[in-house]
């Protein structure tokens, strides 16, 4: 492959083996990766990495082998890092004995993998979440910082909502970049790579569901960068907590049906506020999303259940993990509806998933009370829960397009999901 990659003398020496064979492979991997995308040099990272791989399935033995090799060579990231959510939580997620056995079998490398992460320098035992950027977790980058993250929803949030700069890295490339302290300069790390390829006009009568709109945008955009207009009218207070949470979910959903890693929202996201329509490339095409488009998308999602009309077994809310404010909103909505309908408990159990730091902040008395009503708080990864073949056979419902896209879970809008969880149709 033709390369115009410019290396420092130290980098050249490492690639010739001066730092040992393992460090050579670390650098060779990230340099070759950069070459494919026209990178011309490595650039120093400004913040910790976030790893997407949080699950110890034997299939990933090549990954565990690389980590062993790194640890044997005493090569670890310079900064403490965060990792995606864990795959199991028997304490808080309703689970049968056969399902538990299947979990133990499926994730039988979990303990040894977590030990590897500990040795590599994970931030702490609460650092397992896909919403690593929340203040409660602490891996919160600043505007303009250079990062090497994976986990598509976290990447999209860091790029779009914070204005930090990370490519949509593959698993392991983030870790190897963290070990090198450098990552190849291309794509979203460059000013040009962050310019919008197209404009999307949102012409909806009311605020669209974030995960539904995200899915629609992902299908339109693939790996292009959209400049989204018409969404700011639904957020009169600008980029506040409500707006940030909305954009978190929108970005997560868009990453499933496309390869979106960055979007700009007129008058809301930092670069759109700073540069306005100057961000948009000349001649960028315009697409429109209207109420009917989203309605058609919603009703067109395939249902993979053998008995689509049957009642669901369980609901998941929080893929990606909910913020503190989102958790409170869902708790309020469910508890209010239960009170309104004079029901003792939900029709089906609902699991609200949050980062461990938020989970631990909830008084145990409250959690016990909610559990009696069928409301469970967990820091599990719903997606990895659904990877258990026995769980995949269950009728799971969710408001997450991401969970829908990667499992047999069925998507419902927030309102419809609430009806399914609690019953009743009260306004």
């Amino acid at each position, binding site marked *: 492959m033709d390369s115009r990659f410019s290396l420092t003398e130290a980098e050249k020496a490492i690639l010739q083996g001066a730092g040992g064979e393992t460090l050579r492979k670390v650098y060779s991997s990230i340099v070759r990766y950069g070459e494919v995308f026209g990178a011309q040099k490595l650039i120093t990272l400004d913040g910790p990495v976030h790893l997407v791989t949080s699950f110890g399935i034997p299939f990933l033995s090549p990954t565990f082998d690389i980590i062993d090799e790194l640890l044997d060579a005493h090569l670890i990231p310079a900064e403490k890092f965060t990792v995606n959510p864990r795959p199991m939580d028997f304490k808080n997620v309703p689970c049968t004995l056969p399902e538990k056995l299947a979990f133990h079998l499926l994730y039988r490398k979990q303990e040894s993998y977590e030990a590897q992460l500990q040795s590599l320098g994970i931030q702490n035992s609460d650092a397992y979440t896909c919403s690593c950027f929340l203040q409660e977790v602490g891996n919160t980058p600043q505007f303009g910082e250079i990062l090497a993250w994976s986990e598509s929803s976290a990447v999209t949030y860091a790029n779009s909502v914070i204005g930090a700069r990370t490519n*949509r890295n593959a698993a392991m490339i983030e870790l190897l970049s963290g070990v090198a302290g450098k990552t190849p300069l291309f794509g979203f790390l460059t000013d040009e790579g962050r310019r919008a390829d197209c404009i999307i006009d949102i012409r909806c009568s009311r605020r669209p569901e974030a995960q539904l709109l995200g899915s629609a945008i992902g299908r339109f955009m693939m790996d292009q960068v959209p400049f989204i207009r018409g969404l700011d009218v639904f957020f009169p207070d600008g980029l506040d907590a409500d707006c940030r949470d909305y954009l978190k979910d929108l970005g997560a959903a868009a990453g499933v049906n496309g390869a979106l890693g960055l979007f700009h929202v007129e008058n809301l996201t930092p670069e759109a506020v700073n540069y306005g329509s100057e961000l948009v490339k000349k001649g960028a095409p315009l697409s429109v999303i209207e109420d009917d488009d989203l309605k058609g998308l919603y009703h067109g999602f*395939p249902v993979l259940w053998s008995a689509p009309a049957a009642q669901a077994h369980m609901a998941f809310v929080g893929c990606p993990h909910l913020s503190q404010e989102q958790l409170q909103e869902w708790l309020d909505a469910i508890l209010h509806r239960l009170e309104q309908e004079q029901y003792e408990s939900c029709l089906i159990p609902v699991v609200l998933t949050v980062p461990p730091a938020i989970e631990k902040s909830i008084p145990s008395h409250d959690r016990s009370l909610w559990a009696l009503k069928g409301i469970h708080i967990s820091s599990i990864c719903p997606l990895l829960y659904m990877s258990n073949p026995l769980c995949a056979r269950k009728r799971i419902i969710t408001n997450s397009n991401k969970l829908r896209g*990667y499992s047999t879970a069925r998507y419902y809008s927030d309102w419809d999901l609430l009806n399914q969880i609690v019953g009743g149709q009260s306004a």
Partner: protein
Amino acid sequence: MNSFRGRCVISGSIKTTCVVSRRNVNLTASFKASVLAGKRRVYCADQDNPDLFGRRLDGRILCLPAIVGATTAGLVLHSLCKTPMAPAALLFAGPIDPVTAAGVILAEEWMGKSIPTIDRLGEEFLDAVEHGMVIEVTPEGTIMCFD
């Protein structure tokens, strides 16, 4: 016989049958069910991709526009290389994405296993290929399609 020339991301030679997706492929969603079930054969489980859904993917040359979806896709590819479940080659009409590129590079760099990967073959390549067609890939990135 049609022939096409693309850019070699991973060089290699192979001649076998292909499967074709006219739409972008979510690799994780496609392979996950078979991988987790520990099967030796992979049947595409991506409900959003009717071109591939239910089709056998292991040992086949996968012809596609691009790969989309989770950043674990690279990990899936990398790990597949240690099993009999890997696709025989990846042939992209458009440019390869970072996630897939990482997967095939890691496999070659750390395991010495190569999945021939050619990108930028052009839209006409996808127009010319059909499920079950035999394709030959050369180390220089030339693709020959046999009816």
